C-alpha cells in the first residue's frame, strides 16, 4: 500500500499536467486507484474517524480497568457509552481527554495521537467530567471567563460565546451568582457551558444527567440532541433509558471490554433471541391446548397455569415471526375466549442485563 502511494506521488509530481489535480488530490487518488494497481479499500480513502481508539488498555496497579478496547467514531455521531458503575467508562473517557495516560494502545483524535499532540486535541474537545468539579468561590461569569481565556478566546469574542452558551444552557438568571450558591441542576449546566464555550467539534460528557430532576433531564437531552446535529457527542451513562432516548449508537462496556456496538434496534435484534407471549383464555379444553403447538409451529409453549376457568400460557417465538394472527384464528376455531394477549418486546435493559450478567458468570 505504501509503495503504491509513493508511486502515485511520483507520477503526481513528474507529470506536469497533474498540477491541475492538486486541488483534487483525493479524486485523483481514487482515479489512480481505479486502475487497480492495488485493491481499493474504501476505508482508506474515507478514513476520517474523529476518534479512533486502538487496543486501548489502562491498568490501575494490578487491576485492569480497560482491556484493549477498539472503536471508532465518525463526525456528527451521538454515541452513548453504556456500562455499570466501574465498567471502565470514565477511565476510557479520561484517556481520550488526556487526563490519564493509557498503559498501552492509542487514542487518535482527528488524526492526531494523544501522546504527541495532547494540547491540540484538548483544544478541539469540550469535556464535562463525571464529578463536574467547579470552583465554588467564583461567579459563573468569572469561571466561564477563565475557561475562555485558557481556551484562547479573546475578550470581544467572549461576550458572544458567553451569550451563546448562556442561551443554550439556560443560565440566564445565574450568570453573576457565585457557583457555590447554584443548585445541582444549574451546576451541571455550568459544567456543560464551560465544556462548550469554545464551540468544540467534539463533546465528551461523562454522565451529564446524573442528579437532575426529570424536567432538567429532558432539557439536557434535547440540548445534547441539538448539539449532536453538527458535533460529535460521546456521552456515558449507566442509565439505559437515558442512552436510548438520546443517542444514535450505543457502545456497551463491561469489565473493561466492549461487548456490544450498534444502534439500539441492532442490539435488541442481535442479543435478544426470542419474544415472549402471554396469553390468557377462557374455555380452553385440554386437547386443544395440546394441539396449539402443532397448529402453529412457530410457538413454543413454556408454561401454563389454570386459575378457575382461566388458562394462562407463556409462549416463546422467534423475532421474525409474529404469530398473533394465527393464535387469534386458532382461538376462534377452538372456541376460546381471549382475555389477554401480550407480546413482551425486549427492551434494552434486558439486553444490557443479559450481556453484562453472562460476562459476570464467566468472571
Amino acid at each position, binding site marked *: 500500500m505504501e509503495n503504491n502511494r509513493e508511486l502515485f506521488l511520483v507520477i503526481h509530481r513528474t507529470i506536469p499536467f497533474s498540477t491541475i489535480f492538486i486541488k483534487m488530490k483525493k479524486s485523483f487518488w481514487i482515479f489512480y486507484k481505479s486502475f487497480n494497481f492495488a485493491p481499493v479499500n474504501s476505508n482508506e480513502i474515507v478514513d476520517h474517524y474523529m476518534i479512533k481508539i486502538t487496543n486501548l488498555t489502562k491498568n490501575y496497579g494490578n487491576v485492569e480497568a480497560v482491556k484493549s478496547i477498539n472503536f471508532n467514531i465518525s463526525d456528527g455521531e451521538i454515541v452513548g457509552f453504556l456500562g455499570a458503575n466501574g465498567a471502565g467508562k470514565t477511565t476510557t473517557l479520561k484517556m481520550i481527554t488526556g487526563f490519564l495516560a493509557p498503559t498501552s494502545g492509542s487514542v487518535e483524535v482527528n488524526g492526531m495521537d494523544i501522546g504527541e499532540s495532547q494540547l491540540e486535541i484538548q483544544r478541539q474537545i469540550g469535556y464535562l467530567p463525571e464529578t463536574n468539579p467547579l470552583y465554588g468561590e467564583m461567579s459563573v461569569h468569572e469561571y466561564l471567563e477563565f475557561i475562555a481565556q485558557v*481556551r484562547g478566546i479573546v475578550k470581544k469574542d467572549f461576550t458572544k460565546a458567553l451569550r451563546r452558551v448562556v442561551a443554550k444552557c439556560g443560565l440566564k438568571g445565574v450568570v453573576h451568582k457565585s457557583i457555590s450558591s447554584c443548585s445541582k441542576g444549574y451546576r451541571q449546566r455550568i459544567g456543560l457551558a464551560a465544556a462548550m464555550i469554545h464551540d468544540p467539534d467534539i463533546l465528551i460528557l461523562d454522565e451529564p444527567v446524573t442528579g437532575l430532576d426529570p424536567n432538567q433531564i429532558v432539557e439536557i437531552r434535547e440540548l445534547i440532541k441539538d448539539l449532536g446535529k453538527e458535533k460529535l457527542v460521546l456521552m456515558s451513562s449507566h442509565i439505559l433509558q437515558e442512552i436510548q432516548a438520546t443517542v444514535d449508537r450505543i457502545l456497551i462496556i463491561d469489565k473493561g471490554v466492549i461487548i456490544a456496538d450498534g444502534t439500539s434496534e441492532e442490539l435488541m435484534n442481535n442479543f435478544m433471541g426470542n419474544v415472549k407471549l402471554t396469553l390468557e383464555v377462557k374455555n380452553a379444553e385440554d386437547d386443544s391446548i395440546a394441539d396449539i403447538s402443532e397448529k402453529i409451529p412457530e410457538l413454543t409453549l413454556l408454561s401454563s397455569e389454570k386459575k378457575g376457568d382461566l388458562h394462562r400460557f407463556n409462549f416463546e417465538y422467534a423475532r421474525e415471526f409474529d404469530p398473533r394472527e394465527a393464535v387469534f384464528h386458532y382461538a376462534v376455531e377452538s372456541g376460546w375466549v381471549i382475555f389477554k394477549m401480550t407480546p413482551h418486546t425486549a427492551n434494552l435493559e434486558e439486553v444490557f442485563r443479559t450481556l453484562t450478567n453472562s460476562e459476570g458468570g464467566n468472571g
Partner: protein
Amino acid sequence: MGNIKAVYLKEVRGYFNTPMAYIFLTIFALVNGYFFTNTFFLIGQSDLRSLFSTIPLVYLFFIPAVSMGLIARERNIGTIEIMNTLPLKTNEFVIGKFLAALTLILVALAVTSIHFFTLIQVGDNVDTGAVISGYIGLALVGALYTSIGTFASSVTENQVVSFIIGVFIVLTFWLLDKLLIFIPTSVAGLVQYLAVEYHLSNISRGVIDTRNLVYFFSIIGFFLYLTIHMLDLRKWKAG
C-alpha cells in the same frame, strides 16, 4: 504567557474573593508589627534589623499556609481534571499558581513597609539602602519558600498534610545554617551554601552577589520543576 496570566488571575481572585487573603495579611501584619515595635523603642536604633529577623521566622509558617491549597485543593475538589483537560501546559499551570501565591506574600511584605515610614519619622540617619536590600532579600526568601510550598501542595490532596510537609522542608532549609557546628568541615561549605540564612544575611548587608541570586533562582527553579514533574507523573498513576 496568556495561560499563565489566566491561571494567575484566577488564583489571585480566589485569594481576594474569599476572606483567606485578608486573614493572612492581617495576621502577618499583626505578628510582625508586635515583634518589631516591642523592642524598637527600647533599643532606639534607626534600622529595621529586628523586623528583618522576625519576618523570616513568621515566613516559616505563613508561607506554607498560603501555598498549601494551591494544588492540593484542586485535587481535593477535582478541578484538577478540568485543568488537565484544558489546553494548558503543566508548567503554565504551576508558574501561574506560584506567582499568585508570591503576589500575596509580596503584598504582605509591602504592608510591613509601614514600619519603614515610622522609622523615617522618628529616627535619623536612616540607611535606606540597607532597608531596600533587606526587602529584596526577604522577597527572594519568600519566593523560595513559596516554591517549596507549591511543591508540598502537589504531593498530596490533603491541605493539612501539604502544610506540614511544607513547614518541614522550609524549616530544614532554615535550620541548615544553625546545624553547621555539627557538620564535618569537608561538607560544611556545601551545607552552608544550601542554607537560606547565609544568603539572606549577605543580601541584607547590602551585598547582592550573583552567587546569592543564582542560589535563590536555582532552588526556586528546582522546586517548581519537581512540582511540574509530580503533576505530570499523576497522569500515569491511578486517577
